[in-house]
């Protein structure tokens, strides 16, 4: 996650204004069922997170609503990564089209896997990655996918506590209160 910290001082001093004027909306783009993501971005992201945590005899990240988790957080604590997602998801599809002539979500699984491995190790063609670092964006996606899958369901992912059931943790907890804020979903 190298890029986001290297804001200039001018940007820092203007941090409040910048957030308001970044030109992205959390009311949802027109005709998208999501808060921040466009329908196309959500489709690409779903394919990415399902490579990071693929479905097998237990649910994968897409089923567990990891995209929902990320979409919610992009309008909250992840606001600072809105541009990274907008640019990064576009770059994934540009990379995919340049190499395989199709959008990422339409690739067979082995090609999706290969492209993400190339991103992780910065071995993708830089042409599609003029705005964000592929390795840094991959790390961001990896962190957020793990959070959405293994973290608490109250934040919109880990549907039906799928990951906790998978590792064998009892849910709900036997000891203690279930004392939550209303779940975002």
């Amino acid at each position: 996650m190298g890029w986001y910290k290297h804001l200039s001082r001018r940007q820092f001093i203007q941090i409040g204004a910048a957030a308001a004027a970044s030109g992205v909306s959390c009311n949802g783009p027109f005709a998208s069922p999501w808060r921040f993501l466009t329908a196309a971005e959500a489709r690409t992201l779903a394919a990415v997170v399902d490579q990071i945590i693929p479905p097998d005899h237990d649910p994968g990240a897409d089923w567990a609503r990891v995209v929902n988790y990320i979409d919610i957080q992009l309008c909250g604590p992840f606001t600072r990564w809105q541009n990274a997602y907008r640019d990064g998801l576009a770059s994934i599809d540009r990379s995919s089209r340049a190499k395989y002539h199709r959008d990422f979500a339409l690739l067979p699984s082995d090609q999706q896997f290969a492209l993400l491995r190339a991103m992780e190790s910065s071995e993708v063609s830089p042409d599609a990655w003029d705005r964000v670092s592929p390795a840094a964006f991959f790390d961001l996606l990896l962190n957020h996918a793990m959070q959405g899958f293994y973290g608490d369901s109250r934040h919109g992912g880990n549907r039906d506590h799928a990951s906790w059931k998978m590792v064998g943790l009892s849910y709900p907890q036997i000891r203690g209160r279930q004392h939550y804020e209303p779940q975002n979903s």
Partner: protein
Amino acid sequence: MALKRVNAVVVGAGAGGGVVAKELACAGFTVALLERGKWYTAFDCRKDDLRNQRTTALGCAFGPDDERYRRVVVDAHGSQCIVRPSDSDYNNNAACVGGGTFSYGAMAWRFMEQDFQMRSIYGSVAGSTLDDWPITYNDLEPYYEKAEWEFGVSGDDSTNPFKAPRRKPLPMPPLPPSLEHTTLEAAAKRLGLHPFSIPMLRNTVPFNGRGPCMRCRWCVGFACEVDAKNGTHNTVIPKAIASGHCDLRTNSVVKEILTDARGRVTGVSYFDADNHLQEQPADLVIVSASATESARLLLNSKSPMYPNGVGNRYDWVGRNLQGHAYTGAMGLMDFDIFDDLGPGASLAISDYNHGNPGLVGGAVLCNEFIRLPIHAAFMPPPDVPRWGGAHKQYMRQFYKRSVIVMGPVQEMPVYDSRVQVDPLARDFWGIPVARLSGHRHPQDLVTAKYVAERAQEWLREAGATQTWLRLPGLDLSGGQHQAGTCRMGNDPKSSVVDTHCKVHDVDNLFVVDASVHVTNGGFNPVLTILANAYRVSDFLLKNWKPA
């Protein structure tokens, strides 16, 4: 307009400040206890694994918040970045009543006698400002005991032959052992080591009118749902308030220590809960804001008498920033060792704190607190990829089969690892932010590797079928064990405060937190902060009178 004068202002209601506020207020001093955060209670326990003090993916549950706070961090290549409290390199400590003691794991270590005499025992270390404390273990012993009994500590260190002498046992027994505890204990004994139950600021039986630990999975980083963890927020601070002499003001952010033309401290200025600047006159000011924030406050308090910040005549404020280089090993068992009995950490060995061949100091080794799935996901073995089907299979197969043994390496203080104030960046209130720079001493990594290999041997003896080391890096230390930035010493030219934690060239300004630690032990530092705060309080009560 200035507020009504008080005898003492205490800046920060964490470990150090909570104790001083209580001791002074209960002796009749009028005290203004200023805390930048809020006062949370057990009912604020959310068990949110993505938003707490240890996993800050969605923010720090108990402060500081990402909206108003910033720091500047300078990396090894000299490039500087602005970071938020939820970023790991912010080196955050909680900002709330109780400070770190509200949500910590609550290990209650006494440092060993050697930990106060590192220079005398080990000699000088090139590239380090390693030195002795100007006080000894014996000076602190009565106050360690006072902290253990007033706060409440459980555990049993009677089988630890390396511990410093204690006059009184701990007030509460340890929790019944988990499967991990008994497995590791037997293995340690087979290896000829000396395992014992970790002292913890945790009720295991009813104590101080509160119940015992219910052994849940969410301990370090979280509020305790049943109020069984003992911090200043549920022990000394309520007593301070009950005395009628302590005014706790939350959401109060101190801007500056005020001084007069003769250099005496006259009080502090702070932003109140409505962000209005207030002046609080006081006879005495005690700074207990954490190693980073105490140094920042001193450096931000400039006047003609103190052009480089109060207490900073010889440029020592902010230097020697240290914490702990956590080191250890992880192992996988061929059976489910996880029995869901919190807090997880329970067993320790002190065999490797000192006397390691060719090394300077060492670390206590403990089994680790329970890892939630979100933690385990980022700790696969070296031969398992970070993601994909194999990673998922690892999680499914081994979540309940992993054990971690680790410990805090006593770090060699580095003069250039430091807190400064940034010349440009400011926080929400317009106060210059802390600027962190420097790195660990290379010796820390040597010690870390040695201790980690001992942890690995222990795990193998316990039956782990696969083990691997978890080693720290050279990056700047600090974190929740941050210490060292206002060193205690006899020589004003190479320290910031004297043996009573009074700033050398100011009569009525004290620093009481881990900032004053010359070295930080191979242990979690909180009980030493509490004990030292009691010791300084005794000095204040003997030498100052409530007006």
